[in-house]
C-alpha cells in the first residue's frame, strides 16, 4: 500500500492577494507500517502535507498516491469516503469536533458514517474508549462536560473506532498533561507495533520522535528537506544543530560524555542501555 507524494504543490488562495505557497514540488514516500514523525517550524507546511493523505486537501498540482487512490488537482470529491475510512486523521485539538449527546454516540459517529451497523459501531466505540484509557462509566456521559484531557481522548477514540489502516496525527499531545501525553504515545506505539497501523505524526516534541518513531521527515518552507531513520537523525546532534532544535536529553547527555572521552555507540536509544554502557566504562576505568 503505497503512500506517496509526486511533485505535489499546494497553493492557497491562488489569484488573490492572499496567495500562499504551502507545499512546493514535494516528492515523498511514507513507508508502510512505519511510525513516521513529521517535524518542522510553524508554517513549514506540515499540516497542509498531512491533510492531503485523506484528500481533505487536493494538490493544486502533482499527484498524491494512497493505496489505490490517485489524488490529483481539481478531482471530484466522490468515492473519497472509503479513503477516509482507511486514513484516519486526528486534527490538532480534536476535542472541538465533539457534538453528540453521549460519549458512546460520538465515538460511534465515524463508523456509522462509513456504513457500520449501529450495534457493531457501538461495540467498536466501546473498545476504542477502553483503548484510550477511559472506563465504561464514561459511555453515557455528555462529551461536552468532560475535562480537556478526557475530551481529547474521546476525540481520538472517535478516529480509532474507524479502524484506520493509516493513522495521521497532528500534534496529538499538544496541551495534554505529561502523564496523559505518555499514555497517548504508548497507545500509538502499540497500535503501530501490535496492530501494524501505519502512523504519521506531526510533532514538535523531539523526545517523542526519539522515543517512539521509526522515521523522521523534516519540512522546511513547504519542502521535505530531510527524510531518514530516527537512529540516523539522532546519531549525534548535528542534524538538530543544523535545524536549530534542542536534541533529546539523552542525546545531549551522550554528546557531553563523548566529549569527555566516553566511547558511546549510535544505537544507544533507551535509558537502561545508556546507563549500562556508562557503568561498564566507569568500572573499566575505575
Amino acid at each position, binding site marked *: 500500500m503505497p503512500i506517496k507524494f509526486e511533485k505535489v504543490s499546494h497553493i*492557497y*488562495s491562488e*489569484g*488573490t*492577494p492572499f496567495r500562499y505557497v504551502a507545499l512546493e514540488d514535494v516528492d515523498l514516500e511514507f513507508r508502510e507500517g512505519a511510525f513516521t514523525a513529521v517535524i518542522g517550524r510553524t508554517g513549514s507546511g506540515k499540516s497542509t502535507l498531512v*491533510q492531503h493523505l*485523506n484528500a*481533505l486537501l487536493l494538490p493544486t498540482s502533482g499527484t498524491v498516491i494512497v493505496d489505490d487512490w490517485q489524488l490529483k488537482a481539481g478531482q471530484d*470529491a*466522490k468515492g473519497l*469516503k472509503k479513503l*477516509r*475510512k482507511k486514513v*484516519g*486523521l486526528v*486534527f490538532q485539538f*480534536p476535542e*472541538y*469536533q*465533539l*457534538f453528540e449527546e453521549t460519549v458512546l454516540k460520538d465515538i460511534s*459517529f*465515524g463508523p456509522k*458514517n*462509513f456504513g457500520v451497523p449501529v450495534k457493531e459501531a457501538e461495540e467498536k466505540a466501546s473498545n476504542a474508549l477502553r483503548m484510550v484509557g477511559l472506563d465504561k462509566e464514561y459511555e453515557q456521559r455528555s462529551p*461536552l462536560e468532560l475535562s480537556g484531557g478526557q475530551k481529547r481522548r474521546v476525540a481520538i477514540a*472517535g*478516529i480509532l473506532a*474507524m479502524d484506520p489502516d493509516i493513522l495521521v496525527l497532528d500534534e496529538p499531545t499538544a496541551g495534554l498533561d505529561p502523564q496523559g501525553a505518555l499514555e497517548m504515545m504508548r497507545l500509538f506505539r502499540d497500535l503501530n507495533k501490535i496492530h501494524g497501523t501505519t502512523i504519521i505524526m506531526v510533532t514538535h516534541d523531539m523526545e517523542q520522535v526519539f522515543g517512539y518513531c521509526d522515521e523522521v521527515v523534516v519540512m522546511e518552507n513547504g519542502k521535505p528537506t530531510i527524510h531518514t531513520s530516527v537512529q540516523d537523525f539522532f546519531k549525534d546532534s548535528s542534524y538538530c544543530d543544523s535545524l536549530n532544535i534542542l536534541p533529546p536529553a539523552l542525546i545531549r547527555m551522550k554528546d557531553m560524555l563523548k566529549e569527555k572521552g566516553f566511547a558511546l555507540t549510535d544505537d544507544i536509544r533507551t535509558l537502561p542501555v545508556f546507563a549500562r554502557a556508562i557503568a561498564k566504562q566507569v568500572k573499566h576505568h575505575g
Partner: protein
Amino acid sequence: MGNITLGRYIPLDSPIHRMDPRAKIGAMIITLIAIFFPAGWIGYGIIFTAVSTVIILSKLSPVYIWKSMKPMLLMMVFLLVINILVIHTGQVWLKIGPLSIYSDAVMQTLYIIVRLLLMIMITTCLTATTKPLDMTLGIEDLLGPFKKIGVPSHEIAMLISIALRFIPDLIDETNRIIKAQESRGVDLKEGKLSERIMAILSLIVPLFVSAFQRADDLANAMEARGYQPGEPRTRYKILKMKGPDWALLLGACLLLAGMIYLAYFA
C-alpha cells in the same frame, strides 16, 4: 467558505486606503442616498463613473468587486420573476402562453438591479479599503454627536469591532470543523435528508461550543485588563481629516446634488 469576499479588508497601499474612515463612511452614506433618487440612466451613469474612479484609485481588482456581486445574482433573478408576474403596465414586449412580459416590469427590474449593483460596489469599496478597527473608530466618531441624546456610541463601536474581529476566526473554525467531521466520514454534499441534518448538526454544535468559549475568554481578558464600558478612554490612533478626505466628501455631496437636480428639476 474561503471564497467569501463580501466585507473583507484587502491590504493594499492606495490613496483610498489612506483616507480618513469618517470621510469614507460619510461619502458612502451620501452616495447611497444619491442612488435612491430617480435620476434615470444618465444619473446612474454618472454615479457609476464616479464609483469606478474611486475603485481604480483604490487599486482593487475588478475581479474582486465582481466576486462580491455574485451572491446577489440569485436575488436578482428572483426580483425579475416577481416583477414580471406583478407589473402589468407599459407595452407588452413578449407573450409566452398566458404570460405577458410588460416593458415596465423589465425596466423596473433593471433599475433595481443597477441600484443594487452600485450599492454593492460602494460598500465593497469601503470595507475592502478600510481596516475593521479604523472603521469602528470612524463609526464611533460619527455617532459621537448622538451621545447627548443617550446613544452609547462607544459601546456600539466596541460591539461592531468585536463582531468584525471574530468573523475570520469563526470562518477558520468552521473550516476546521468541516475538515474534522469530513475525516469522520461526514458527507456535506450528498446523502439522505436525515444524514444531511446530522452532518449539519455535527458542524453547528461544535461551532457554538467554541464561539461561547471564545466569548468567555474574551470577556475575561477584557475584564482582566480593566475594561469598563462607559468610562472615558484614550485612543492610540487619532483620526485627522486632510485635503483628500474633504475632497471625497465634497464629491459625494456634489453627486447627491446632481441626482436631486436630474430627478426633479431637469
